[in-house]
């Protein structure tokens, strides 16, 4: 129930110019493209963050700042959005990612044992990346392959009816690479 509160009358407001691209990295042009396609409207925030994450692998402060300024979204609001959605990551992912599905069907069929085994082998907790940046261990809230539970995704590749041995073998292969 509050109105736009710009003290400057309409017409006198200088035309909005989006900030310059953070660097000459070509990926920023892709990000800018998403924003332009949406007319730099505020509602394009999540779409744009998706583009940043798919281009750069994660979202750092500079990227969030750039997107927020371009879409005229308050910084705190943009950060609130980034941290609300689990899909967005503030840290770069490892070279490889193993994702264990922790949906109900997978849980019933022993996904927690897979997670525990991977955590033990890698020495990290779920959601983390090994110190050498090689492997990230993630969990998913159901990838929709429930009929083949428990499901593990190795670099996006779906493996059904996964066993602890299979997961450890895969981690081993990545480690010795």
């Amino acid at each position, binding site marked *: 129930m*509050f109105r736009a509160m710009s003290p400057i009358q309409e017409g006198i407001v200088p035309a909005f110019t989006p900030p310059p691209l953070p660097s000459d990295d070509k990926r920023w042009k892709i990000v800018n493209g998403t924003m332009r396609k949406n007319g730099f409207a505020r509602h394009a925030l999540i779409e744009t963050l998706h583009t940043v994450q798919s281009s750069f692998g994660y979202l750092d*402060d500079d990227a969030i*700042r750039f997107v927020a300024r371009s879409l005229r979204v*308050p*910084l705190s*609001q943009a*950060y*609130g959005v980034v*941290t609300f959605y689990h899909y967005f990551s503030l840290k770069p992912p490892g070279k490889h990612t193993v994702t264990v599905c922790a949906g109900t069907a997978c849980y019933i069929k022993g996904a927690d044992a897979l997670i525990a085994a991977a955590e033990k082998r890698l020495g990290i907790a779920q959601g983390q990346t090994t110190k050498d940046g090689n492997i990230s261990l993630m969990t998913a809230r159901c990838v929709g392959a429930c009929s083949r539970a428990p499901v593990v995704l190795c670099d996006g590749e779906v493996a059904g009816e996964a066993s602890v041995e299979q997961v450890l073998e895969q981690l081993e292969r990545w480690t010795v690479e």
Partner: protein
Amino acid sequence: MSDAVEVKTLIIDGEEVSALRGQTILEVARENGIDIPTLCHLDGLSDVGACRMCLVEIKGSNKLLPACVATVFEGMEVTTKSERLQKHRRTILEMLFAERNHICSVCVSNGNCELQSLGQEQGLTHIRLPYRNPELPVDASHERYTVDHNRCILCTRCVRACAEIEGAHVWDVMGRGINSIVITDLHEEWGSSTCTKCGKCVQVCPTGALYDKSKIGVDHPKNPDFLPYLNLMREAQ
């Protein structure tokens, strides 16, 4: 259709009252001297219906409605006090007291805290729930104010006052669920944020989460009454 009638009559706690179409139950109740407890509501800010303290019963419906956002209708029968409502209100307060570290005796807002007074009003004598005792930071980087997340109840009054009244939107909420916290800018220090130092957020904070550094050790009441005045002046322009 009865919707076209501007004046509605309804019953709150057995008392017949009249209201204007579009008014909330809370507004009408307070106009008539009927008290409904609130925490996230503040006159002059938009309502979010988040704290659930103002839930009331409506005859004919099993659902409890937040009085701060539910609007009146003709013939509505509202109950603001019942065993069921009191039970939920007490449990919600317990949840709040156990969620973070509310230690009244060492708090700057001791004696002037809305959470504390609500606890007293609702006859809360002890907390049955296990205390969560989270380790939360205190940010004293601002030259005038401090935010102590241990005392924050996430009512988002600061977020709304900053965005709606000051127009700066420096505050927002990050994370989700039990891990939510209020932040300034990109979760940066308050002192180096884009804060305008107006202090509105401090005045609207119901607890000792946001406080004025110069007031430590002295009685520290908050004065959020300026909000309706500011809105009125804006309307007039």
